[in-house]
């Protein structure tokens, strides 16, 4: 039990930081100043799109992925050249077996106006 304590602390620290202890290369969202319908050339037939970008961690040791706003918006826009507005940004987490495998995704949903 005594030997378990440092290990538990290590795992707790890893899960709290959402980073891998051995290797980490992730992108996390920080800020996105989205446009409102009044700020773009909005039209009633503008399409609604959804985009997703994810980071993953395995056995608390490795973390990789790109859950940035840039990636989520690029995923939502696809090949379209437009500006997203009326944007809702959410986070979705899937964790299995006490977080041994975790997936954290940034999800954006909104309408696309012409630039």
């Amino acid at each position, binding site marked *: *039990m005594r030997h378990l304590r440092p290990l538990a602390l290590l795992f707790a620290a890893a899960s709290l930081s*959402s980073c891998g202890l051995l290797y980490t290369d992730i992108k996390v969202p*920080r*800020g996105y100043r989205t446009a409102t319908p009044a700020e*773009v050339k909005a039209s009633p037939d503008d399409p609604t799109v959804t985009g997703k970008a994810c980071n993953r961690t395995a056995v608390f040791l490795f973390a990789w992925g790109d859950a940035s706003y840039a990636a989520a918006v690029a995923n939502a826009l696809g090949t379209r050249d437009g500006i997203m507005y009326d944007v809702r940004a959410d986070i979705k987490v899937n964790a299995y077996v006490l977080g041994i495998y975790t997936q954290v995704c940034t999800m954006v949903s909104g309408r696309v106006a012409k630039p």
Partner: protein
Amino acid sequence: MKLSLALLLLLLASLARARGENDEDTAVPGLIPAGSFNLFYDSSGPLSFVANTPKDKPTGAPELGLVKGVSCQYGLSVPVTANLRGTSISGAIGNGSFVKALEEIKKKKPELVGIYDVRTDQRIFSILGIYRKLCTEVTARAFGAGK
């Protein structure tokens, strides 16, 4: 049993945690973390940036397309004991500020006048927690001077 419960609670708490700026535009500094025994620290990080929206683009200003600027902070943390909670000697250097990231964009496109539709992200890179890199990435649409 208590330990497992504590671990589970910590895990759940971590899932509820969110990074970055809040909905209220509260400024959250993005500085690289310092180790327990910090020898040297000379680093700048992002704090807040109220970016332009498409409405702020002047009429007739030419579109310059999607641009991206990156600025980074670097950290080194060398453990001095073989204990998991042991001391480490650390140092950090770099400029990961919004100003530097925007300068990078300006360097790539000198004709740029402003940016809008701005997304800011952070890249976290770490190997064994000894070498760390924290980069600020600004992705936006750019416009030039109107006629």
